[in-house]
C-alpha cells in the first residue's frame, strides 16, 4: 500500500529525514517509535503532504502511485488520513458540519454526489456511539475549548467517518487518560481490516498494549535504525533508546 524509498526531507534548509525506507501493506499495523526530535511527526506530515517541508529526495508511493507531488487534499481523496498531534481549533464550524464538508468534498473529488443526509446522520450516530461521544459534542465548534482527550477522540471520530485506506496516528495517546486511551484504541481496532493499514507514531509503548503492531520501527536522527516485531516496543519501554545508539556505534 505505502512504499517509501530513501526519503529525504527538511525544513528551512535543515535536513530532518535522512533516508527513510518503509513499506506498509494492507492489513498491517506499524508502529514508529523514537526519542523526541527524531523526525516522527515530520515523517507523518510529509506523507500527508504538508507544504512547508522541503521534499528533497526519494519516493512516496501509495497504491502504486507516486504521491509526493500531490496536494494534501488529493492525498486525502486517495485515502491517506493523518490524525494530528495538535488538532486545530476552528470556531464557528461545528464538528458535524466539518465532517460533512470533508466527506462530501472527498466524494466530489471522486465524482460522486453528496452523501444523502439520512445516510450521513446514521453514520455519524453509529461512529459517535462507537467512540462514546456525546451527541451535544457534535454541535460544538471544532476543537474549540476541547480538552486534550476530546481533541484526540474527535480525530478518531473523523477517521472513523472518513474510512481511509491508510491511517497515520501522530501521538494520539498524548493527553489521554487510560479510559480514553482504551476507547480510542478500541475504535481504531474496530476500523482495522485486511484492506486498510495503520501507522501508529508514539513515544511510549502504552498505546501499543491496545493497538497491537505487526511491526515496530525505531526512528533516530532521521533514519529507521531498527525494525522488529511487537516485542521491540516492550524492550524500548524497559531499556530506553540508549542501547540502540550503542548498538549503532
Amino acid at each position, binding site marked *: 500500500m505505502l512504499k517509501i524509498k530513501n526519503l529525504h526531507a527538511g525544513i528551512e534548509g535543515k535536513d530532518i529525514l535522512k533516508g527513510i525506507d518503509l513499506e506498509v501493506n494492507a492489513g498491517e499495523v506499524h508502529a514508529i517509535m523514537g526519542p523526541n526530535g527524531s523526525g516522527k511527526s515530520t515523517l507523518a*506530515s510529509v506523507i*500527508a*503532504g*504538508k*507544504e*512547508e517541508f522541503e521534499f528533497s529526495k526519494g519516493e512516496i508511493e501509495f497504491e502504486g502511485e507516486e504521491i509526493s507531488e500531490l*496536494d*494534501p*487534499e488529493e*492525498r*486525502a*481523496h486517495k485515502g491517506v*488520513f*493523518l490524525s*494530528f498531534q495538535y*488538532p*486545530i481549533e*476552528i*470556531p*464557528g*464550524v461545528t464538528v458535524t*458540519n*466539518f465532517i*460533512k*464538508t*470533508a*466527506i*462530501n*468534498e*472527498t466524494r466530489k*473529488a471522486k465524482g460522486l454526489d*453528496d452523501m444523502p443526509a439520512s445516510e450521513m446522520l446514521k453514520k455519524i450516530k453509529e461512529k459517535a456511539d462507537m467512540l462514546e461521544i456525546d451527541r451535544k459534542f457534535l454541535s460544538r*465548534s471544532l476543537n474549540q475549548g476541547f480538552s486534550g482527550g476530546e481533541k484526540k477522540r474527535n480525530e478518531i471520530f*473523523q477517521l472513523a467517518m*472518513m474510512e481511509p485506506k491508510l491511517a497515520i496516528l501522530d501521538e494520539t495517546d498524548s493527553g489521554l487518560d487510560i479510559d480514553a486511551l482504551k476507547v480510542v484504541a478500541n475504535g481504531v481496532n474496530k476500523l482495522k481490516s485486511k484492506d486498510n493499514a495503520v501507522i501508529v507514531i508514539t513515544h511510549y509503548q502504552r498505546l501499543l498494549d491496545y493497538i497491537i503492531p505487526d511491526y515496530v520501527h525505531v526512528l533516530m536522527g532521521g533514519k529507521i535504525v531498527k525494525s522488529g516485531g511487537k516485542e521491540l516496543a516492550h524492550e524500548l519501554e524497559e531499556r530506553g533508546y540508549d542501547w540502540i545508539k550503542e548498538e549503532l556505534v
Partner: protein
Amino acid sequence: MSLKDKLVSSYIAFEDHLEPESPIHDLRNKAMKVFEEQGFPSKKEEDWKYTSLKSLEKTDYSIFPEQQEKHIEFKDVKKYFLHDIDTYKIVFIDGVYSSFLSETTHDSIDVCLLSSALNKSKYQPVIETYFDKVATKDSITSLNTAFAKEGAYIHIPKNKEVEKPIEIINFSTGNEAAVMLQPRNLVVVGENAHVQIIERHQSLSENAVFTNSVTEIFAEKRAYVDYYKIQTDNPSASLIDSTYVSQQRESNCRVHTFSFGGKLTRNNLSFYQFGERCNSTLNGITIIEDKQHVDHNTLVHHTAPNCESHQDYKGVFADKSTGVFNGKVLVDKDAQKIDAFQQNNNILVDDRATINSKPQLEIFADDVKCSHGCTIGQLDEDALFYMRSRGIAKKEARALLMYAFANSVLESVKIPELKNRINKLIAKKIGVSLGFQL
C-alpha cells in the same frame, strides 16, 4: 467648481425654502458656517490620516436630486429587505420618501419621517430636546445638519417593547449621473423601551452616489437598542456614516456594522455614556476586495462609573483593499470601575492589502479594567493544512477559515433571519459555496 464650493453656493438657494422662524434654521446656518470654514477633512487631520476624500471632492455630484417620489416595484428590490419576517419599513429613493415601499406607524410608537417631525408642531418638544444634541460639530456632520431634511424619525415611548424590527433603507437609482444624499435619522428610545433597527444604503445602478449620513440615537434609562448597519453597496458608492449614541443609566446599546461593499466607507461611531451601569457594544465585520476602502473610527466616552463597553472588529482584506480601525476609549476621572474591552483582528489575504489599526486609550480614572488587542496576519497555514488533510480543497479551506474568523462577531446578532442573511452575504463575498447550510 469643487464640491465644497458647490455645496456652499447651493445652501443659499436651499435656505430660501426653509421656514425662517424654525429654531432648526438657526442651527443650519451655524452648521453651514462650520462647514464653510473647515471644508472636507483632509489627510492632515489625525482622524483622517488614512482616508482621503479628494476623489469625492472632485466629483460633480448633483446635490438636489429630483424631488418627485419615484416608483420601484417591490419585487425588484425585495432582496434588500428582511422579507421573510414582518418589519416596519422606512424607505427612501434618492433621498425622497417612498410611501409605496414603506410601512410606517403612529400606533403607540412613531416610525415615520424626519421631515414631518421637523415641520409638525406636535413633534417640536422631542425635536427641541434631541435633534442635533449628541452629534458633534465637526465639518462633515455640520454639512449634514445644514442640508438635512429627510430621514427616519423613530420615537419609542417608555416601557414599549417594539415587537418587530424597523428597517431604514436608502435606495439610490442612479437616474442622474452622480448624486449626493444626506439622510438624517433621529432615534429616541424611552425609559425601559426596546427596539431593533436595521439600516441599509443601496444603489440600484452603477452610477456613483455619495451618502453623508448622520444618525442620532438616544437611549433613556434602561432602554435597549439593537442597531445593525448593512453596508453592501456597489463598487462606485461612497458612504460617510456618522452615528452618535447617547446612553442614560442602565441602558444597553449595540451597534453592528457589516461592511462588505462600496468604494469608500467611513464609519464614525461614537458612544457617550451619561449614567451608571451602561453597556455599549460596537461590533463589526469588514470583508473587502479590489480597491475598496473601509475606515472604522470609533469612540466610547465613559463619563459615569460602573459601565461596560465591548468592541470587536474583524476584517478580511483581499487584493489591494485598504482598511482602517481607529478605536478610541475615553474614561473620565469620575468614571471608576469601568470595564472597557477592545479587539481588532485582521487577515490580509493578499500582500497588497493594507490595514492601519490604531487603538487609543485615554484613561483618567484609576480603578478601571481596560484592555485592547490588535492582530494582523495571514491565514493560519497549520489550520489550512489540517483542513486540506481532511480532503477539503485549498479554496474551500481558505473560505471556511475566513468564515470561522468572522463568525464570532455574528454570535451576537439577535435577529435569526438577519444572522442567516449576513451568513449568506459572507459566503457570497468570500466567493464559495460551502458543503453545508451556514
